[in-house]
């Protein structure tokens, strides 16, 4: 049997950082990833933060990848961070940029399908020097112990092999955790469901519309009627030439009043302010070819489609400085005006000859969904099992505080700590929990991120409250009106924060994370103090079937999910809550069609849930 020092299971942001860091420490590690290519199984919002915390050191992305700031394919550095309270065509906005800047070196918007392959390339370069590397398209199926120091890993594809330690970075739906029984399955109160669409929008239009420059980015958060009465909110982040628009809702609240996940994202897309932000010019075929013969009609349609494709490409490129530069460099066009003229002439030809109308709408590229663990409620207090260490989402380590959703940075910080513990164990050639597991647990406990999951950071709260000064006091719920009042008075602030911390998350959460906070109060604020927002067109949102049809799947004939009780209440709710409608009802029983599954994990609790075999299942293009 082949032997290696360490296996990392899962090639998301956490697993790749572990590989890079262990290799930096001169240790041999192999990373096993189920997706055919790195970055095809991962979803994020995604703002990737680098923090500068005062209560202790966090390990940031640039500590792991030293050329991150110069070379990594990130989207935009967020310089504007807004929270909007919405109610129909009213909106009240708060500038939360100071909270975004709080103890922050930088926050970049990222698309994981672009960024993770870069991480992988960097990690691989280091890993190869120690005889390690990355193996993709392989699904880990089982884990056994030969003796205290030897783990045998079985996969669906390869011969079994043995390692001395494992780092489990297999995400929120961790099979390693299930197989080993290292932790219970996450329950609905531990989780949020995130749904996202990537919207295409030309680079310069983004900059003009969001009032940002070439390298800057904006983040907009939403609460109020867009939540459809659920606990959570919406986000819209600018990427280079796309937007990430998504909704993240507490699973408890979804189970209580099931709402289709896509309806939640649609509610956000239909908000008049958002409508204006995502607006683009979109060609629509009228399909009015009645007077043509069949063959003539096919030919016309073919030509029209080709022209539409050309127009879309050139229209997009025209608004991208790098795209224009490239076109001018390869000599196809002499000036930018020439490109514009070409765009216009195709436009006119489409209108006059092919009966195409140009409408205002938006262009959706990809629909995705995934569960997010709320570290306050579910972080593993003992993030290891024998000689397996859990990092990132697999360990339930996500930060959910007010508008903050952070998992990427946390997973990277965990990875560095796990790598250090494993490296030490290899040096001592002992993988006993005293040496490995406990050491890792201590290192993780020291992380400022762990503190963020355990208690409210009063300084953050201060910054947040300073930003909310314009909110009228009498709107706020009576239960924390007193606190709010005290907070706005600087002399009392210190005392009241102490009070808040005394109460602790456990008692505060029902107040903080309630419908009142996410829906009722924002609606009231918007109605009382909001400004009017006009929309200039009516949006057409693709149906869920169209969204699914656009996704890339490599079908597995075998289902990776087995329904345990097709008549349970929970499974019946899946008919509504599965983001890609994999469940339906027939004769009072729930039936599953696994082919459309995007591996979000929403149905995991009452199913026998596995990731698909290597290379199979969903393959995201943006993530």
């Amino acid at each position, binding site marked *: 049997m*082949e032997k290696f020092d360490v296996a990392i299971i899962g090639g998301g942001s956490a697993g790749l950082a572990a590989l890079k860091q262990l290799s930096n420490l001169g240790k041999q590690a*192999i990373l096993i990833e189920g997706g055919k290519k790195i970055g095809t199984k991962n979803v994020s919002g995604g703002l990737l933060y680098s923090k500068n915390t005062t209560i202790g050191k966090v390990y940031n992305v640039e500590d792991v990848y030293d050329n991150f700031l110069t070379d990594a394919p990130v989207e935009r550095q967020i310089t504007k961070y807004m929270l909007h309270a919405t109610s129909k065509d009213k909106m009240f906005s708060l500038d939360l940029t100071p909270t975004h800047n709080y103890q922050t070196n930088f926050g970049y918007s990222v698309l994981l399908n672009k960024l993770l392959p870069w991480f992988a390339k960097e990690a691989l370069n280091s890993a190869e020097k120690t005889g390690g*590397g990355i193996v993709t398209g392989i699904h880990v199926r089982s884990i056994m112990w030969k003796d205290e120091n030897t783990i045998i890993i079985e996969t669906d*594809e*390869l*011969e079994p*092999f043995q390692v001395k330690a494992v780092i489990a970075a297999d995400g929120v739906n961790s099979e390693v955790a299930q197989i080993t029984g290292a932790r219970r399955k996450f329950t609905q109160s531990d989780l949020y469901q995130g749904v996202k669409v990537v919207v295409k929008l030309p680079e310069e239009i983004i900059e003009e519309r969001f009032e940002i420059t070439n390298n800057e980015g904006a983040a907009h958060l939403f609460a109020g009627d867009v939540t459809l009465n659920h606990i959570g909110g919406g986000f819209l982040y600018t990427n280079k030439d796309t937007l990430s628009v998504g909704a993240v809702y507490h699973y408890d609240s979804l189970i209580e009043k099931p709402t289709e996940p896509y309806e939640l994202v649609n509610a956000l897309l239909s908000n008049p302010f958002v409508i204006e932000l995502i607006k683009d010019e979109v060609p629509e075929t009228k399909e009015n070819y009645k007077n043509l013969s069949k*063959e003539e009609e*096919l030919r016309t349609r073919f030509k029209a489609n080709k022209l539409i494709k050309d127009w879309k490409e050139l229209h997009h490129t025209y608004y991208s400085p790098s795209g224009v530069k490239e076109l001018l460099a390869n000599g196809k066009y002499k000036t930018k005006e020439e490109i514009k003229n070409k765009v216009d002439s195709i436009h006119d030809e489409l209108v006059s000859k092919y009966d195409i109308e140009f409408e205002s709408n938006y262009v959706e590229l990809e629909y995705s969904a995934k569960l997010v663990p709320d570290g306050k409620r579910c972080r593993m207090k003992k993030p290891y099992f024998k000689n397996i260490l859990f990092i990132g989402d697999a360990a339930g380590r996500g930060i959910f505080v007010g508008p903050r959703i952070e998992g990427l940075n946390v997973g990277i910080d965990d990875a560095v700590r796990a790598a250090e513990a494993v490296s030490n164990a290899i040096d001592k050639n002992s993988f006993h929990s005293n040496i490995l597991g406990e050491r890792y647990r201590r290192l993780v406990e020291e992380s400022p991120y762990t503190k963020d999951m355990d208690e409210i950071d009063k300084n953050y709260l201060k910054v947040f409250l300073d930003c909310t000064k314009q909110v009228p006091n009498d709107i706020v719920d009576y239960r924390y009106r007193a606190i709010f009042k005290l907070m706005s008075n600087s002399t009392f602030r210190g005392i009241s924060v102490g009070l808040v911390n005394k109460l602790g998350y456990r008692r505060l959460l029902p107040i903080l994370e309630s419908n009142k906070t996410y829906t009722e109060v924002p609606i009231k604020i918007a109605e009382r103090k909001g400004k009017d927002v006009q929309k200039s067109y009516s949006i057409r949102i693709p149906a869920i079937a169209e969204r699914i049809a656009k996704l890339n799947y490599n079908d597995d004939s075998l289902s990776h999910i087995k329904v345990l009780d097709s008549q349970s209440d929970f499974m019946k709710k899946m008919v509504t809550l599965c983001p890609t409608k994999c469940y339906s009802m027939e004769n009072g029983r729930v039936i599953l069609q696994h082919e459309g599954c995007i591996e979000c994990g929403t149905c995991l609790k009452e199913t026998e849930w596995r990731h698909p075999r290597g290379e199979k299942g969903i393959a995201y293009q943006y993530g």
Partner: protein
Amino acid sequence: MLNPSGTLNVAVIVKLEPDFSEGNVSYNSDGTLNRAETKNVLGPHSAVASSAALYAKVKYGANVSVATMGPPIAEAALQQSQLICNADELHLYSDRIFAGADTLATSEVLRAGIKKMANEQGIDIVFSGHRASDGETGQTGPQTAWKLGYPFIGNVIDYDIDKERGYVRLQRLIKNYGHNDIIEELESPLPVFITLDPSYSPFFNTVSQRLNLALNQNDAEKRSSRYKEYLKTFSAQSLELNLKSVGLPGSPTIVYKVEKIPRAKANRKADIIDGYSQENLSQVARRIYGILGETIIK
């Protein structure tokens, strides 16, 4: 027996062919292939042969040489093959007098070229595709094998090597007693000449092989972008060939004329259906069902 160097030496014979994939072929008005307009690529069977060499490289650390006979543009086939199998050496056999060669004369050039490979230490396995897609007869392989004095084994779908004993163990597809696709297992001492079944695809089933595969793919990208550094071009003279046995003089067969076989008149009527309409599509489905009935819903 393995060649004396101790490293497994494998060769791949490839061919540049018109790209028959959709949208890339161009025809003359009489329906014959327009060779000038059609793009040329590494033939699909050559690609399969290259992937068999990749298997040898990843699993056994083989030294890989790739060869083709043809005009200078045939270099493209070598480059594309190198991208698949991370070849260490590329051979182009190019000489005006090779023109008009039939399969026998081609085999003679390949024989002489293979002898020159791997510092003339001797090639243990020669891989070639099933046959070329632009009308080859499948004779070049067996003839080259015969000239080299290597056993010829066709339709191979899997192989493994016992380096110590100098043997190769293979699986191949055969037809027997009216059954297609019978898998025959056999063993042969090295050296051998192998043609691959089109269904062949290498499978790497250990972690080390996968790691090695990734390294090789990485390397192959780098190498093939600078493929000229690996390229050696040979003429009839540098291959020390007898001019009577190559090109037209060495070709006992001559292609006198290629006839276009007239297409049988189709005895069917086509309806053009607008596939954009749901209603029309269900009509099509109904008609298919009408013709095939239950047999399609097994």
